[in-house]
């Protein structure tokens, strides 16, 4: 399990992998922290919404793909870290130097 908290881990994930779809981020977070179920899926999406509203992430693309959202017609977002997000990560000691 990662040492860093979930919101920090999500930022690091985006810094490492570049752009990602929200369901990919949720899947990675749930696998890494040993979590499962709709509640945690929703929690990750909500955290992404916080990060987007705060201006740390850019929304790059939106789509509908029921296969990726448990058969429901749900909007899915592809997010990427922007300069402000990177700056906040550096200020908070979240930017990994070596990897």
């Amino acid at each position, binding site marked *: 399990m990662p040492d860093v*908290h979930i919101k920090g881990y999500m930022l690091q994930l985006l810094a490492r992998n570049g752009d990602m779809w929200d369901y990919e981020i949720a899947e990675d977070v749930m696998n890494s922290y040993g979590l499962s179920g709709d509640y945690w899926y929703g929690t990750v999406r909500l955290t992404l919404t916080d990060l987007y509203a*705060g*201006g740390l992430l850019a*929304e790059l693309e*939106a789509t509908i793909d029921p296969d990726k959202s448990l058969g429901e*017609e749900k909007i899915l977002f592809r997010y990427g870290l922007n*300069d402000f997000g990177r700056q906040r990560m550096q200020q*908070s000691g979240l930017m990994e130097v070596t990897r």
Partner: protein
Amino acid sequence: MTDIATGRVSQLRGEHRSRQVRWGFIWALTCAVLWGAWYVPGFAIYYEAPFVDMVDNFLLAAFVITVLNAVAVLIALFVWVAVLGKTGDYVRTLRQTKISRWYAPAGLAGMLAIFGSIIAIAYVGAAFAAVAALLYPIVGAGAAKVWYSERITKQAALGIIVIVSGGVVIFTPGLVDEFTGAGTGGLLGYVGGAMAIVGWGLEGAIAGRALDVSDPDVGITLRFTAEVAIWIVVATPIAWILAGDELWSTVGAALSSPAVLLLLVLLGMTFGYCYVSWYKSFPLIGVGRGQAIAALYGPFALVWLTIFTLVTPSWQFMVGGLLAVAGSFILFTERRDVLEVIRAVPAGRARTSRDDPSSTVR
């Protein structure tokens, strides 16, 4: 993707982002309702033993109540975090000292605001203290705008000012009497009022900064961990020196009273969950708007106190209440694309799947 599918994506996207903003306002309003409700046990506790007999020792009574209130809030928040399954994340966030350290000044600013309010009540009056505390969104919005470019548009600034004026109008009847009757201790009371305005305003701005990189439920719990630590490590020894052993006899008497314990549970839950809602609203709609809507606690406090005491509020209450509601609508009816990303940073939303790029790039 067909045009119909693109239209559907666009529609769902719009609904999702609207919901994001709406929830920001819902959380801030929840905070206002609970903050207002907090005043009922908050007043009632002064009428219970041992505090009811401490009229000539008001500051000690207020100190003990404030510390016990903070401890009760922290317990309520630990329960909240555990129920949400975020206790592990609390520990992990605490260990990220470059993040968790921000909650110490936030807690300190908040506790100075609470203490300032108490001094204002003691030396000027409750109405003055309430008005002073209601002005804090002006400081919070200003600090957030200057510090990290939060989008405070003209409409938002107008909404904030209208809500705050509504709050001030509500408390005018008591205010005039208090100013004329403040006497020699008045100056200290005004300093306390200023502490409330600056303290809560800055707390919000600092919290807004820390919440960029941490979870609101965990963040508020860290903030109260810091506050309780400061009360116990710094403030309690000072109070012990000033008040002597009466401090401990008061704490002992308070904790052995079932009525006080029940009131502490109510205080912890109303204040704790009001603060949770406050912190949850900041990332979604920003510190300025979140604080302004939360300042509706003024009208709500009077509504709750009216329900419980059956004392009819004055006409100023009606006028002030209407102003506060009008101000909220000014904030809420702002264009959604202004509210979607609350910071003036380059590149919020880059492109929606196959939308017309020229209409979405900012």
